[in-house]
């Protein structure tokens, strides 16, 4: 009897509290994007749409968002290409030093960000390279590759190799078999990896802070301006990105559900 009541009532209540913990700061950020804030967005001063109508009212916010988007796209494209190639090689081919390759891919994920950031900066200082836009992209590609490999590897491993063999039996060249059979099947995994890489890059602060010089990304801008007050436009940008990502994910889920239903009938 006791178990029944625990499972039935306590567990959902516990989960609801956990969601409250997860979502409160998001609700707060969203609410304060409508604050008639003036210079510092600390106290509620009244409801307004001005911040949303004029998201570039604080020019530094827009600049940093544009930087973050450019860096994010570049880092995503490069790391997705490099990572996908590695993932295919790891699953499909036997080669020597496989354990070494796996270790090399695992280490960046097991190293705290502050160490990765400090190591790269030490290297750039050593080579007399001035940190800036390019070094941020270099740093982001570095920590994204391993996550892309892990994500795409799962998809490659679940692929039936007989599909490629069937293509070969039908006289497709290895190249044609790859691009017309394997690649389309890998695409969902590659897309998931690219989304992951983009969100890792876009939200990164610690490694970026070490290797950015005078270039501001959005997280860095928010962190640096925290002491003198964050403009409400930063909340607008944060909330807008939240809504855009939410729409993308929900659309994806609806499409997947529709496809499942179509497959079932």
């Amino acid at each position, binding site marked *: 009897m006791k178990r029944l009541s625990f499972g039935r009532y306590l*567990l*959902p209540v*516990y*989960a609801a509290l*956990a*969601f409250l*913990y*997860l*979502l*409160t*700061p*998001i609700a707060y*950020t969203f609410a304060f994007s409508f604050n008639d804030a003036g210079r510092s967005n600390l106290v509620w001063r009244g409801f307004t749409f001005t911040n949303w109508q004029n998201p570039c009212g604080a020019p530094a916010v827009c600049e940093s968002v544009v930087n973050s988007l450019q860096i994010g796209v570049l880092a995503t494209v490069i790391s997705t290409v*490099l990572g996908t*190639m*590695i993932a*295919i*090689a790891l699953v499909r*081919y*036997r*080669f020597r030093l496989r354990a070494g*390759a796996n270790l*090399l*891919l*695992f*280490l960046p*994920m*097991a*190293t*705290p*960000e*502050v*160490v*990765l950031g*400090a*190591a*790269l900066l*030490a*290297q750039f*200082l*050593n080579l007399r390279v001035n940190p800036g836009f390019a070094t941020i992209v270099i*740093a982001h*590609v570095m920590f994204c*590759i391993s996550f892309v*490999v892990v994500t795409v590897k799962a998809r490659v491993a679940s692929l039936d190799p007989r599909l490629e063999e069937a293509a070969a039996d039908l006289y497709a060249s290895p190249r044609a078999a790859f691009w017309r059979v394997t690649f389309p099947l890998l695409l969902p995994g590659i897309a998931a990896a690219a989304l992951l890489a983009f969100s890792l890059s876009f*939200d990164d*602060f*610690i490694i970026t802070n070490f290797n950015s010089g005078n270039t501001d990304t*959005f997280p860095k801008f*928010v*962190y640096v301006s*925290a002491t003198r007050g964050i403009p409400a436009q930063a909340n607008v940008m*944060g*909330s807008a*990105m*939240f809504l855009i990502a*939410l729409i993308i*994910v*929900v659309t994806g889920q609806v499409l997947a*559900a529709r496809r499942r239903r179509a497959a079932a009938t």
Partner: protein
Amino acid sequence: MTAALVVGHGTEVAGARRRSRTAWLLLAPGLLYLFVFFVAPVAVLLLTSLFERVPGGPVGATRPAFAVSNYVDAVVTYAPQFGRSFLYAFIATVLALAIGYPLAYVIGVRCRTRPLLQGVLLVLVIAPFFTSFILRTIAWKQILADDSVVVSVLKTVSLLPDDARLTATPVAVVAGLTYNFLPFMTLPVYASLERLDLRLVEAGGDLYATPISTFRHVTLPLTMPGIVSGSLLTFIPAAGDYVNSALLGNAGTSMVGNVIDSRFFRVVDYPTAAALSVILMAAVLLLVAWYVRRSGTEDLL
């Protein structure tokens, strides 16, 4: 016969060699990238950690040396910060598991018959990723600020003494770490709970095991891979984090990350910063290796 065997063998070897060449063509660009921008920088970090500062030289000037004393100094001077890093990260990992496991259980097991609800709840778990974590941490700082609604309500109902505060405390830092890495714990645990075969749990009940012992002997071992990757994804970044301590804590909550950051940018003492980074990396890697081996999930790597 022999000739055919030899020829057959020969083409096979040639084929294998060609395949291995393709493999290296695919691997080379990415692995080379990691060599140049991960392995080499870590090697430079190691070298820098042994340099010595030039007394009376320009700011940040160092010269090659073999100053092992950097490590001794770093450990002796910053032992409290190291202790805090690992203690806070450990508590945050345990708390994230305590919150994330039941949450993942509700989504992955309870909601299995309702895919729509399951989808919605899953989106809610990853929702925090959609807003910058710095913005969310600052939101916590303002929600828990001394003049905030939360604090004044807690004081009115006497849950909090009049002179107490929530921000600038170790509790706030640990709560912030737990909050920031909770989705990283919940998602891998969810992934393994979602695959859990419920017939095995029923079998436990059929064999007169109490729910608790069924959980201990069936559910928990089967979801161990999720727990291990979740705790690694929480512990590693938490141990190196300095954002939560900087935003939600005070001087008394400073962690190794804070010291490395300030040694690099404010004090411009590269050898000490490098030595601290090397120690942090070594300590985390040793802990990870020990943990993965102990929990018997080596194939995770």
